[in-house]
């Protein structure tokens, strides 16, 4: 259920980007009158803002799942070197969840 919602959200970025392109195409076609052009423009700007928000939604973080002493699996945040992608202090990490 939650996954479905998530999926549709993801699709909605792609959908919004496509609609944004359509809006630009329609505006460029010259088929719209001034009033419709302004409406289309406002719609496009809303879509652009929505897409930009979507792009910023994720919060940069790298987490690694680890199994606690109680058997519960929890995420732990790790630092990485962004030039190499190397996880710092990986010596203490569990190699698997089993």
């Amino acid at each position, binding site marked *: 259920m939650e996954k479905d919602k*998530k999926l549709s959200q993801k699709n909605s970025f792609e959908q919004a980007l496509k609609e944004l392109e359509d809006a630009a195409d329609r505006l460029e076609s010259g088929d719209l009158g001034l009033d419709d*052009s302004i409406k289309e423009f406002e719609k496009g700007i809303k879509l652009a803002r929505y897409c930009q928000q979507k792009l910023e939604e994720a919060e940069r973080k790298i987490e690694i799942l680890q199994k606690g002493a109680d058997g519960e699996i929890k995420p732990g945040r790790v630092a990485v070197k962004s030039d190499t992608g190397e996880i710092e202090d990986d010596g203490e990490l569990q190699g698997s969840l089993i």
Partner: protein
Amino acid sequence: MGIDLKPNFYTVSGINALIRSEVENNPLLGNVWVKGEVYNLTYHSSGHIYFTLKDDSASISAVFFKYANKNLKFRLEDGMKVLVSGGITVFEKRGSYQLNVLSVRPEGEGELQKRIEQLKKKLAAEGIFDQSKKKELPFLPARLGVVTSPTGAAVRDIIKVALRRYPNIEIIIAPAKVQGDDAAETIAAAIRELNKPVWKIDLIIAGRGGGSFEDLMPFNEEVVIRAFADSIVPVISAVGHQIDHPLCDDAADAAAPTPSAAAELAVPVKSDLVDEIEYFKTRMTNSLLNTYSGYSTALKNLVSKRIFRDPYEILNSRQMMLADIESRMINLMKHRVSSEKEKILRLPDIYRLQKKLLVQKKHDLELLVQNLNSLSPLNIMIRGYSIVIDKNKKIIKSVEKLKQGDNIEIRLADGHAGAVINSVKKEI
């Protein structure tokens, strides 16, 4: 008696040439399979591969030339047990021989390969590799799950590429062993873990860096393949390989030849998307400005038209036209009236003329009647003439028409009388 031991001398070159000829022309040595372990492996910059093949008690040099090794599907490693095919060649200059390698197979690969094929057939029959089961990859995965060793090259490559492309992406690593006997179970467990809704994963990359055929074996295990196939979250298989791909590639929703390539497949370049959005915005803004200035110019042109600039001018010209038509109409009417009036004024003259004509006609008529009277026979008879007509009312103009006893009628001016002819006498 002496034995004639005639020593047969060879030069060094000569003996080496003879050995070479003997060896290289021997069909048994020209095409052999040799089993052994790889040692002293050198990948030379020329592209040739040099190594020593050995077993417990012996070794032989081997050269794997570039033309032959270009189809090698894996990377040779020291200590690797291999099955080599090739021919023995002699290096005359040094008096040494070597194995000229044409192909190399990991020993035992044949058996494993057979097992993989059987598994593939079985799982294919279940429909696990069906195209219809493939899920579409999300366009913008905000949370990326990664299943691999937390210490291997693969996780570094994935993180590096993903962050470069999408700096604020969230990556959740589910650690797994990627080689060894228990690796397959840990990989499957990690995939199952990331499928739990609590982690909100949009896309999973599962794999490892390249390795030997045996290293990649966990990704050919049934438990891993099933985990790939059963994943509700889309999975990209990211097992480093060159030609032979592991079975999990077929069960994944997408497959990449390396972990880096998988990250590129999974994560869009954020700056491209930002640029794309900006590009659309610019296009929209320019279009709107164009449309606006188009209308604005049209409006200006319209406003600058004469009708708007000086509306009276058109009115004036219309008024002038109207006045012109009016005066023409008036003139026309005046002309008509005066011409009619003239006709009326001329009417009495016509009347007089007509009257005169009438008098003239009357006079003519009187003259005519007079003439007619003078011509009438009655007028002549008044003067004493008479007319003789026969019984057929015919006028008799000669005595020759008469004979004695004929009854005639004599017409006089005032009546007539019957008579009988007594005599007839012609006088002329």
